[in-house]
């Protein structure tokens, strides 16, 4: 009876879009770093934690006003409790579990046993409860119980909660956990020396040294000495005791420098990765950016021009030496293999307009990168460099938007320079954007004033502009010198030539100042 009721309820939840949306919302806000509201939630939690700890410190010397206690006990703890429950809720889906078990039972013609399912769900949730972050969360709620003074110290667990909301601490823990083996080994060694030295001093000095009365004192002395802290409240008085001191001080120095070097090396190993992640994160916030694969002559030349524009880019190269050189030259570079799926998948290809430039000098690599990018999302634009004319077909098959043959381009340019010198100079001026002959593309949707107008209504001459033609949409046909009654529509791109200031003036006049 109760079983069928629950199953029906589970199906109702499954069918409800509102429920799913709500759950997804909380899941995002709690766990999804991409969610835009998460940072507000995190800031609120950090604020609660800091005020709560502040009140604890303040309380030591001062009487605390009533509202502070109410705030600390009820507001903070309540929010923490709600958060705890929400996390427990979003950890797994109970209703899908019930439905799955129900359908399985139906399929196998077995009786549907509610207790089995509930046990399974409870086990699942229990797994969350005993995970470390959940335990910290739970302990952080405990100080709400005022009568037990000792619980007040659990406020400090609220500090541990900060780990959840701040990224840098997480990274610190991550870095250290990579050196788990070394650190455990050292800890074990430390405990071993401490125990031996402690027992030894206890045996030698328990009756002679008034400061050492128990084994605990002996261990305490051993740790203070081995860590080179040396409070001096307990000091050996016998020559045997001093001999032990000498030994453990020497081993202590060695061990401490060892620990330090392990931590430092862990960081220096991870530093590049951390930096690279930061570059990627910054880029992912941008609307459009370039991924340049390979750092050779071509990339250098390209960046030299591109830098003036200040556009967003990152260089990816497989060779760490090459990356180091790029960074030395002042460019943003990361050492990764762009032909690997997970490398490109790190970029925000769903929202941003990404252009991948395959400029390595190997065709195999370029094609592989191109395929990789295109398989990730066809909307990624790929421009690749080919070494050979025969390769062009392969690049086209790989879906590359533009294939570039440096030798061919150069040959063409040289040929033009010889056969059509005037045109060469003209094109050179136009393409290198010399200020007298700026050729520019005006997007109609950015210049709202143009839409719906006929060409003759716009007096290009008074703007000192030469109207060359209209491109109908990104992939549409190009109308050269269109008839005067052509109407400009929203997706048109107007090709104009003139001084840079004339073009800017034109854009401003028609309502699209910014580029």
């Amino acid at each position: 009876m109760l079983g069928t009721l629950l199953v029906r309820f589970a199906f109702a939840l499954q069918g409800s879009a509102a429920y799913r949306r709500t759950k997804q919302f909380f899941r995002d806000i709690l766990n999804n770093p991409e969610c835009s509201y998460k940072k507000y939630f995190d800031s609120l939690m950090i604020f609660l934690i800091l005020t709560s700890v502040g009140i604890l410190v303040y309380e030591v010397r001062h009487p605390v006003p009533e509202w502070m206690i109410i705030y600390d006990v009820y507001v903070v703890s309540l929010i923490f409790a709600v958060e705890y429950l929400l996390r427990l809720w979003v950890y797994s889906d109970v209703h899908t579990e019930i439905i799955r078990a129900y359908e399985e039972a139906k399929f196998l013609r077995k009786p549907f046993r509610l207790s089995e399912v509930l046990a399974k769900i409870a086990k699942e949730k229990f797994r969350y409860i005993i995970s470390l972050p959940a335990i910290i969360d739970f302990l952080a709620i405990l100080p709400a119980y005022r009568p037990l003074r000792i619980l007040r110290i659990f406020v400090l667990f609220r500090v541990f909660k900060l780990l959840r909301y701040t990224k840098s601490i997480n990274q610190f823990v991550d870095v250290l956990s990579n050196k788990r083996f070394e650190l455990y080994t050292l800890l074990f060694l430390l405990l071993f020396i401490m125990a031996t030295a402690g027992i030894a001093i206890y045996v030698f000095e328990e009756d002679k040294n008034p400061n050492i009365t128990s084994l605990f004192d002996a261990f305490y002395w051993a740790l203070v000495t081995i860590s080179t802290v040396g409070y001096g409240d307990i000091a050996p008085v016998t020559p045997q005791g001093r001999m032990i001191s000498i030994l453990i001080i020497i081993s202590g120095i060695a061990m401490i420098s060892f620990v330090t070097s392990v931590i430092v090396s862990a960081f220096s190993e991870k530093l590049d990765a951390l930096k690279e992640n930061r570059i990627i994160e910054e880029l992912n916030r941008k609307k459009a950016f370039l991924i340049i694969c390979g750092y050779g002559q071509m990339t250098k030349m390209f960046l030299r021009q591109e830098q003036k524009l200040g556009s967003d880019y990152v260089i990816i190269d497989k060779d760490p030496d090459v990356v180091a050189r790029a960074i030395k030259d002042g460019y943003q570079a990361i050492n990764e293999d762009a032909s690997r799926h997970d490398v490109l998948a790190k970029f925000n290809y769903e929202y941003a307009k990404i252009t991948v430039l395959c400029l390595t000098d190997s065709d195999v690599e370029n094609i592989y990168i191109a395929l990789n990018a295109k398989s990730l999302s066809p909307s990624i634009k790929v421009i690749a460099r080919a070494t050979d004319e025969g390769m062009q077909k392969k690049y086209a098959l790989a879906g590359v938007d533009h294939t570039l043959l440096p030798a061919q381009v150069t040959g063409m340019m040289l040929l033009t320079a010889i056969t059509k010198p005037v045109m060469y100079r003209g094109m050179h001026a136009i393409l290198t954007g010399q200020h007298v002959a700026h050729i520019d593309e005006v997007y109609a949707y950015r210049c709202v004033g143009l839409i719906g107008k006929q060409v003759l209504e716009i007096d290009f001459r008074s703007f000192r502009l030469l109207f060359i033609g209209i491109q109908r949409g990104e992939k549409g046909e190009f109308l050269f010198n269109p008839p005067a009654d052509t109407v400009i529509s929203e997706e048109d791109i107007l090709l104009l030539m003139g001084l840079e200031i004339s073009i800017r003036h034109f854009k401003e006049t028609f309502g699209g100042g910014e580029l």
Partner: protein
Amino acid sequence: MSKRVYLFGYGKQGHALAEGLRREVFEVVIIETDPHYVEAAKAAGFEESYLIDVTQDSQIEALHITPDATMVCVMEDEHLNVFLTLSLRALYPEATIFAISSSIHMTQKLKMAGASRVIDLYHVSANRIHNILTKPVATKLLDSFISNDSDISFREIAIPEGSWLHGKMAEEVDFSAYGVLLLGLVDLELGNKFIFITSGVAHKLDSGDILVCIGYNEDLDRFESIIKLSTEPKKI
């Protein structure tokens, strides 16, 4: 400009260039140091292919090149290419020398050696990527001019003697009515310099000036015949 081009080097670049120049009805003279390449050039139909040692000035002089000739240096050996450019410049101070370079340093050396125009492989390609990214429509249009596979092209038209254009201001003439756009012109009075129409300088047209126009080939042909007339025809 003379339609005779001296092409030094028949390697990968030289080969493509020679074919391109032949298509444009240029007289191509090929000079190589490698007998295989000379044979290949002869086989491809370039009658005037010579095998010489380009480091010997006497052998170059034996080719009887006119002092104002057009020369192209695309030897496969980069060092030899720079050396050759230098010796050609020393021998023919008046000549127009083109060269292809494959690095920034080489460009500088070639320029110092006296090349009139150096085309830098990487520079040109990088420029192109840049243009594809920032000016896709314009790049496509200009490409079609170069590759000659489009109906629209770029043409230099000299104003003939006694044309109705003579004495008119460039702004007065409505070129677009003829389906032609005037990009700019080369004014003989002002030296051999290309002036863009949009530079904002009022300009008087004279016979002998070279108009640089773009338009459909048929429109350009028609326009070329129209400007031969002594009076502007009535608009249709």
